[in-house]
């Protein structure tokens, strides 16, 4: 009854590969599970905000397009809507041109700018959950938090004291709510980072190390599959029995 080492090479490979790639596999499944289990709309924070424009009463008269274009000739599009500022809902024109966006009063054509109180009032209107509690209003010009695309600077950040530590980001020129963030989005972002292994910008899915890990995990799976064939196809011997 001579024994030979049956210590399979495959198992050795499977173990060593798992030491390197298996750990990432765990991270992939944890981050994947998070992203899968939380509804994407919820992650996006769709439940946090609502529409705030309202039809403009027929009695409000607004300037003609001709008058608008006279004052602002380099305009590619004009939007007429209503917005809350200075303590009431007012008709505004939003102008888009090569130089970005600009807001003017639709009746007087006077330019509109927002101070902290305006922004807070607007954010509270955007906020869809009951009892908005604004914790802070911050005007960001540089050093944006990681959750914000730096191209959007300067921007108003309005932080709410709520379950998800909601932050709404409002355009400084139009008061429009551009970005919404809450804890579960932030969690998603971190797991996304872990999932794509771009720990820096969290966007690059083409890094060589991601590709290396995918390849390594692939080999790990192949060694695992071979072991599976070994262990499942051979009938299990009775425990400890030699017969």
């Amino acid at each position, binding site marked *: *009854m*001579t*024994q*030979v*080492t*049956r*210590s399979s090479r495959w198992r050795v490979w499977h*173990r*060593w590969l*798992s*030491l390197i790639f*298996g*750990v990432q*596999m*765990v991270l*992939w*499944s*944890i981050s*994947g*599970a998070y*992203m*899968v*289990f939380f*509804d994407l709309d919820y992650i996006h924070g769709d439940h946090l905000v609502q529409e705030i424009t*309202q039809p403009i009463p*027929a009695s409000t008269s*607004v300037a003609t*397009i*001709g008058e608008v*274009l006279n004052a602002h*000739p*380099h*305009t*590619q*599009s*004009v*939007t*007429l*809507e209503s917005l809350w500022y200075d303590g009431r809902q007012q008709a505004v024109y939003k102008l888009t041109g090569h130089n970005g966006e600009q807001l003017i009063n639709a009746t007087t054509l006077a330019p509109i700018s927002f101070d902290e109180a305006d922004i807070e009032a607007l954010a509270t209107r955007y906020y869809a959950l009951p009892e908005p509690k604004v914790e802070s209003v911050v005007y960001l010009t540089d050093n944006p938090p990681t959750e914000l695309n730096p191209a959007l600077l300067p921007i108003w950040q309005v932080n709410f004291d709520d379950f998800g530590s909601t932050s709404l980001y409002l355009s400084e020129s139009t008061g429009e709510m551009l970005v919404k963030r809450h804890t579960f989005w932030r969690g998603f972002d971190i797991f996304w980072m872990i999932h794509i292994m771009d720990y820096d910008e969290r966007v690059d*899915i*083409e*890094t060589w190390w991601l*590709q290396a890990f*995918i*390849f390594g*995990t*692939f080999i790990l*799976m192949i060694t*695992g*599959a071979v072991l*599976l064939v070994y*262990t*499942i196809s051979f009938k299990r*011997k*009775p*425990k*400890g*029995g*030699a*017969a």
Partner: protein
Amino acid sequence: MRFMQWLHRWVSLILIIQVVLWLISATVFSIMGHHGMSGHQYMRHIHPEMLADESPQWSIQQVRATHPQADTILLTNVLGHPQYQVNVSGKWLYLDGHTGQPWQTDVNLAQALALASYDGPGQIAEVEQVTGAAEVVDWSAAGYRVQFADDLNTRVYVDAASGQIVEHRNTPWTIADWAFRLHFMDYSGERSFNHLLIWSAGLFALWFSLSGLMLLIRNISQGDFNPRRKPTWLEQLQRDEKPIASSCGGGGTCGLCKVTFTNNDVPTPTAAEKVMLSEAELTAGLRLACQHKVQAKDAVELANENVASHLLTLQNKRDLTPSIAELTFTSASRLDYQAGQFLQFKIPHESTVLERHYSLATVPNADNELVFTVRHMPAPKSGVPAGVGSSFLCRLQPGEHVEAIGPFGDFLLTKASSRQQVFIGGGAGIAPLRALVQAEQQSTTPRPAMFFYGARNSAELCYTEELEQNPHVTYVPVLSAVSEKERWTGQTGFVHEVAEAWLREQDAQQVDVYVCGPPLMLEATMKMLAELGVPRDHIKFDDFGI
């Protein structure tokens, strides 16, 4: 851990296909990148013209009048032609900026739009009127599909009601789309990753990788990753579920893991082996499996060939002494053993199975009854549990079962020498010694035998009558803590001292000695035998560790 392994295996069987699909699709994503997958390789943004170039003839006041409920009214232009976009309670309407009528997109405009949004090398090959498109999931309105003849097979979808470019699609996009289907397990093309199928896959994957992680941690803690640490033969044989006994867990102290190396250069014996094995055994290639790492060139043979697993049923139980119980089992399958051997019992304990060894206390008998003597191991002090294996066996009721593997051991009678046989024992060591004495008695020419057995007082003696009546044995019980009222007339003191006194009168070369008993007794006896010059090859012992 067996459960973990089982779980890891079966979950992986179910999951491995999906994991491979995940990896393949991830490779596609990673190689193509966001831009490569977007279908926008040849797409360019259409900037509206300046409104002042062509003012609308239909005024915004007229739009307000016809759509008083509008939330938003947007004036822009489509390739220079003014257009109103009106939002009424979330729905967008598109009006011609000159007439106020619903916007119209004809084939020519669609072509012009498609061209304006395209900066690739191709020309328009075909324009087709469509209603929605399978490859544009959220779009089901009327419009155009403008096909370009280029290397990427670009097609541009134009929405008729708004005159807007809906999407660019091309071959890389289609490949990426399949990768998304595979990755998200959403074969509807909607690229949703919040649905039942992927939830279950996600859970499985979590189980799979976490059970793998646990196994990995076990491997690390076992030192499997230390490149210098190969498994010992004992570990290897245990992993392969080969019949090999060990009661010291590979410490080189129990001597149960004996194997024979059959290759030419047998490893040099370690210090532990020089203690546990006799010279003859060492020259015969016997080694302790726990002392040597597996080497590719090694070939190893197990000592016990007819080892098998047996299901034992308790038939009878009686107390021999206050601390030793005699248990009689029968086995469902035939068990051939030799006197002096033992079985490895599988003791269920909490969620695991422990291994404990018990020696057979008789020679094999016709009824295939298996007799053991088990010393009950009480807790040495309060707060410490009593012995697990002995308690389990002593609690066992007739009719109940226990699994045991064996037989193991080479605590056997010497062969073919006419030397004086000497048995020295104490405590639970009675079991193998009694079996050996019985075997000697049954042999054709029984050799003369002495049996020194140590106990503290006369209540601890067992099988006295049987041993005294055996014509071939001189039985010498020795008591170490005898009390007055016992009226003991026999030997007193330590059993090895009494044996020593007798052995001094003998020719040390002409005795075979068998020793089994508590560790201290065993140690003292071995020392005494060495001093008397009894050849190591003539000494056999069994270390119970108790």
